[in-house]
């Protein structure tokens, strides 16, 4: 009996072969890899990279302040001002190898406190809410030379997130949790879809993605709900498979939820620590699974906005403004914190409650697009991030 895996391999191979063998690599204008990790729910930058050296830190963070570097269960030390959450061991290790960088007091142009609008602005790259219906990373794809059936970018999700939606073709993949469809049924569906381009193209994309995901002996069954650390690790492993494939995508977008820590946020252990541990494990898996490809990789971990400096009445934090972003990868010029630190006195804060943004997140994205993916700089200020002259490219964060 022919298994589904067999037909997927055949179907996938057909799609790949039809896109001119030998010229496939030339199709993508870059050999660099970029992974965007979106933390949905507003991750707390003051917990990710606590400014332990700021005289106000312990006072404003109260019971959520992390133990100082060197103490038992203490945070990692990054420099004289900043530490790193103890759950982020992999990030710390890469920081020590100058392959991880923290950008602090960073924010998108969004200044309100709605997750939905905040994620919209983070992903559409606009200067304000509601002005663009496609994503900045999709708009950045045009010069990278992907094509239908040979996409440069993949969403590691069932539905493509806004950041990748738009005119340029992208593909998507997520683990299956339903019984396999029969091989012959898939063949018949391909026939039935033949005259309907919308369905035909998407089924071909999905089969090709399955073929890559199931290559090399196939992926372990994806864990179901519950163990987010395992899920993150499994998604990172799948992402690495796609990015390592010779004619596979160069860019991947991953999402992780659960960062909206209004209650019982925890410190060295607890809700947020578990999330960070899952993220850190995912980053470690990505590095080990990518092997040699890691040296060409930049991973950017970002969130829609930060959280309040002060602790609320339920041992958590509420929606804030500036936060921290993590860049990690073989191509990152790391080992340092990039921050024009605004301070934590109430007069230093945005609206007397949030960390004041001093770096625009678009400046970070521009650096990745121009210095890593070699996009023409002039496209960045017009097509990719309209109205972004106030957010110049952040220099020297990518290795040359």
């Amino acid at each position, binding site marked *: 009996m022919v298994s589904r895996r067999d037909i997927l391999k055949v179907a996938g191979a057909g799609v790949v072969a039809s896109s001119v063998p030998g010229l496939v690599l030339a199709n993508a204008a870059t050999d660099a890899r970029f992974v965007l990790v979106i933390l949905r729910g507003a991750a707390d930058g003051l917990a990710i990279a606590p400014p332990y050296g700021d005289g106000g830190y312990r006072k404003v963070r109260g019971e959520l302040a992390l133990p100082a570097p060197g103490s038992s269960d203490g945070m990692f030390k990054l420099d004289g001002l900043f530490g790193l959450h103890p759950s982020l061991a992999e990030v710390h290790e890469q920081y020590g190898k100058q392959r991880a960088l923290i950008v602090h007091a960073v924010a998108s142009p969004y200044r309100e406190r709605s997750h*939905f609008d905040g*994620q*919209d602005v983070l992903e559409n790259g606009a200067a304000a809410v509601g002005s663009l219906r496609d994503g900045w990373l999709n708009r950045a794809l045009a010069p990278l030379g992907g094509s239908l059936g040979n996409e440069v970018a993949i*969403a590691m*999700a*069932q*539905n*493509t997130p806004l950041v990748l*939606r738009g005119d340029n073709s992208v*593909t*998507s*993949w*997520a683990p*299956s*949790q*339903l*019984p*396999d*469809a*029969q091989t*012959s*049924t*898939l063949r*018949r*569906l391909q*026939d*039935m*879809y033949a*005259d*309907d381009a*919308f*369905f035909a*193209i*998407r*089924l071909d*994309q*999905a*089969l090709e*993605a*399955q073929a890559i995901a199931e290559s090399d002996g196939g992926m372990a069954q994806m864990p179901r709900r519950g163990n987010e650390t395992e899920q993150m690790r499994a998604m990172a492993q799948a992402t690495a498979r796609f990015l390592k494939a010779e004619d596979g995508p160069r860019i991947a977008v991953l999402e992780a939820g659960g960062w909206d820590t209004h209650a019982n946020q925890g410190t060295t252990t607890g809700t947020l620590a578990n999330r960070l541990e899952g993220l850190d494990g995912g980053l470690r898996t990505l590095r080990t699974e990518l092997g040699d490809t890691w040296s060409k990789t930049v991973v950017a971990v970002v969130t829609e906005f930060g959280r309040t400096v002060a602790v609320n009445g339920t041992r958590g934090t509420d929606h804030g403004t500036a936060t921290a972003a993590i860049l990690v990868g073989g191509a990152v010029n790391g080992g340092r914190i990039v921050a024009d630190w605004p301070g934590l006195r109430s007069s230093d804060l945005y609206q007397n409650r949030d960390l004041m943004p001093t770096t625009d997140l678009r400046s970070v994205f521009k650096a990745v697009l121009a210095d890593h993916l070699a996009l023409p700089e002039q496209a960045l200020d017009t097509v990719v991030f309209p109205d972004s002259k106030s957010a110049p490219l952040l220099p020297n964060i990518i290795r040359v």
Partner: protein
Amino acid sequence: MPDDSRFIVGALDLMGQTPFRPGSPAGWPDTAEHWGGADALYKRIEWSNTVARIAGPRVNPVELGDAVLGSTFSTESRKAISRAESDVQGMTLLLASPDFQRR
């Protein structure tokens, strides 16, 4: 019927649009761009297959297609379904057909 509702919610979650948990207060958008990602389509096919395994043997998929799709049932889909190798496969094809998916 908690088991049934769990099945439905679970299926909608897999297809990318968990009930009552849209990514925006405007609710789940109904444009194809939003529900029709490559992987979302694949999950829909797997869901069609799962439902067909449960309901397929009891239903004639062509008759069901005529009944629910009426004039929007395309000749191509109707032909493909009538040629299915089994009722279960026919039901999968019906549920995953562009006509049914767009309805």
